[in-house]
């Protein structure tokens, strides 16, 4: 036993993270339905359990007991592989997310890089799922997803490069440690760059687009493409896509929290920090994402690409330039402190 504490720890974290991802997927659906219900002057699910709290359980049982239909014309390997390719990278990304000072599955020096590497694999899952479905709507959707993700990874990564220049590290926990209270949060760190709030906005918009959330949900635009890349999926095949989508939303919100909103640190110094702060910030961002979804209509693919190439990329490049200039200038002005 004593010989392998690290392996045991990792196993415990693996189980914990999978449960966390699954619970998140289940209860974010519940939250989504409640939020959307109240936005639309309805009350949302209420029949199963108090406040409909057991609804996700019922939905989960339904999905798991449903037959996974594999239509005869699909590519049998790709079709079965795709849902896993969406979900597994999303869960893997959780490995480096610092829930609190010590609650990190694996503190890695290149944590930020790892998250983005896994996030890119996610697109592959969507592409293969759409392609393997042998359905025209799914293929159109897969093509849309890829061009959308390529377009939005650029401003997102430029923003992240800017952040790395400022923080000087890719270790997510160290980034959090640099933001002890609200004035030190990177979203308000005007000494690093006056464009920090804009950078946060760019990052947030990009994470919406990366996770295929409204108003950028072109991949599953139900009024155009039925259900997009998962048109042909049923049962748990669809369920895995769904879990993957929500896990990616949590990852996106977690990264925004870690990079800009001080992670698990408390906003004011007299209240101790901890995982509850991290979750509160993450769920606030997720609530905002839902709020946006139920307020805005969908953009078109052109509108989406225009926004990325003509607005977000120039802004993030400008921010990169300004930050670089500030990094070099500040020591010159204020001395080598």
């Amino acid at each position, binding site marked *: 036993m004593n010989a392998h504490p690290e392996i045991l720890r990792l196993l415990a974290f693996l189980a914990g993270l999978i449960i966390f991802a699954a619970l998140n997927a289940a209860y974010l659906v519940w939250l989504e339905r409640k939020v*959307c219900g109240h*936005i*639309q*002057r*309805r009350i949302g699910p209420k029949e199963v359990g108090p406040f409909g709290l057991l609804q996700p359980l019922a939905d989960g049982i339904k999905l798991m007991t449903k037959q996974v239909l594999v239509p005869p014309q699909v590519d049998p390997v790709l079709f079965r592989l795709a849902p896993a390719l969406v979900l597994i990278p999303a869960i893997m990304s959780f490995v480096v997310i610092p829930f609190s000072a010590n609650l990190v599955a694996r503190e890695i020096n290149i944590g930020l890089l790892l998250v983005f590497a896994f996030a890119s694999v996610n697109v592959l899952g969507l592409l293969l799922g759409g392609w393997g479905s042998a359905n*025209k*709507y799914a293929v*159109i959707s897969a*093509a*849309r997803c890829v061009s959308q993700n390529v377009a939005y990874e650029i401003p997102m990564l430029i923003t992240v490069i800017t952040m790395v220049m400022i923080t000087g590290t890719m270790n997510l926990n160290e980034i959090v440690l640099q933001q002890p209270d609200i004035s030190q949060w990177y979203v308000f760190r005007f000494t690093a760059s006056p464009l920090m709030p804009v950078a946060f906005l760019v990052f947030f918009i990009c994470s919406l687009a990366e996770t295929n959330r*409204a*108003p950028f*949900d*072109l991949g599953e*635009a*139900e*009024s*155009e493409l*039925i259900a997009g890349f998962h048109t042909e999926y049923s049962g748990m095949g669809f369920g895995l896509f769904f879990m993957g989508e929500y896990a990616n939303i949590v990852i996106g919100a977690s990264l925004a929290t870690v990079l800009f909103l001080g992670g698990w640190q408390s906003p004011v110094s007299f209240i101790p920090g901890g995982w509850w702060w991290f979750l509160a910030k993450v769920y606030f961002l997720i609530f905002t994402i839902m709020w946006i979804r*139920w*307020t*805005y*209509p*969908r*953009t*078109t*693919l*052109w*509108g989406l690409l225009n926004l990325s190439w003509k607005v977000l990329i120039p802004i993030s490049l400008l921010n990169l330039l300004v930050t670089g200039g500030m990094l070099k200038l500040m020591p010159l002005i204020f001395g080598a402190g």
Partner: protein
Amino acid sequence: MIDLALSQNKEIFVLNLGPQHPATHGVLRVKLLMDGEYIVSAEPVLGYIHRMHEKMGENRTWAQFMPNTGRLDYLGALSYNHGYARVVERAAGIEVPERAEYLRVITVELNRIASHLLWFGAFVLDLGGFTPLLYAFDDREMILDLLESVTGARLTFCYFRFGGVYNDIDDNFVPGTRAFIKRLRKRMPEYHNLVTKNIIIIKRLRDVGPISAGMCRRYGATGPVARGSGINYDVRKNEPYSVYPEFDFDIPVYEDGDSMARYMVRMDEIEQSMRIVEQALDRLPDGPVMAEKVPKIIKPKPGDYYSVVEAARGTFGVRVVSDGTNTPYRLKLRSPTFSNLSLYGEAARGMLLADALALMGSLDLVIPEIDR
């Protein structure tokens, strides 16, 4: 755009939009030739919900066809009641009491508001915004409650009779309608704030799906589609019928011909319909709601009769040929969306799939009325 697509790229594929597809709101099938996301050609295919309404009309008595009219355009059923009642009244020479005409106008205009509200919600749903649909349904619900108290039905109304209407209003109808109009007046600015001024909506509708006035004339498009292309034609003004000449209302016309223009026409029409209903409530005369000497079995004099009304989607015409018996010899329906849809193939050519669906939504299709 289309020529470029044809010459450079040979990978053109057929995409069957429908007959089951969320955007067609019914069993319409559009056969699309696609080059990537561009539409090379679009061909609406009808026949999935054909019920032979015209033939049914020729096989039953004049009065028995009335319920069928409510099943053509189930969202604006009362206008279709009105069209058929008018043509038979003209054929049989039946005079309608004034109160009945007022009730007809009030209920038809309420029905028009309900139809436009539902269209508004469904159209924004086509554009990916789910929430306005529920708000619109909330308002429409009040109209349906009002109409239910008068007509006994909530959707497929069969309220009009030859010579009047079947039921007088109850005491709650007038205050209820006034309260509803007051409420909707407050809600319309909210809709405009939430949807009309939304940057994404503007980008998706402005200059998208242009339909020229010439195209409207060639295909016989009427209603908000034609009025969005600058054709100032509304049967209520141009060939006044019923008691419409007594009311003061405007016909909204927009010159642009894009999806935004059609959207704005319908939103403005809601306001104008509210004005008509208000004036009609103010002047509602007393008296009977049915003409007194209407024979039980109607046998119009032999002849050819035609009558048009302005339905929520455009000009609805009914032509009946009577041979003096108790059934029509020929019954022909001219439904507005059939003509409005027929221009879709030409208008959608070269468009992106997403924009073409926005265009389809802006035509306000009700499939059972296209496919009678």
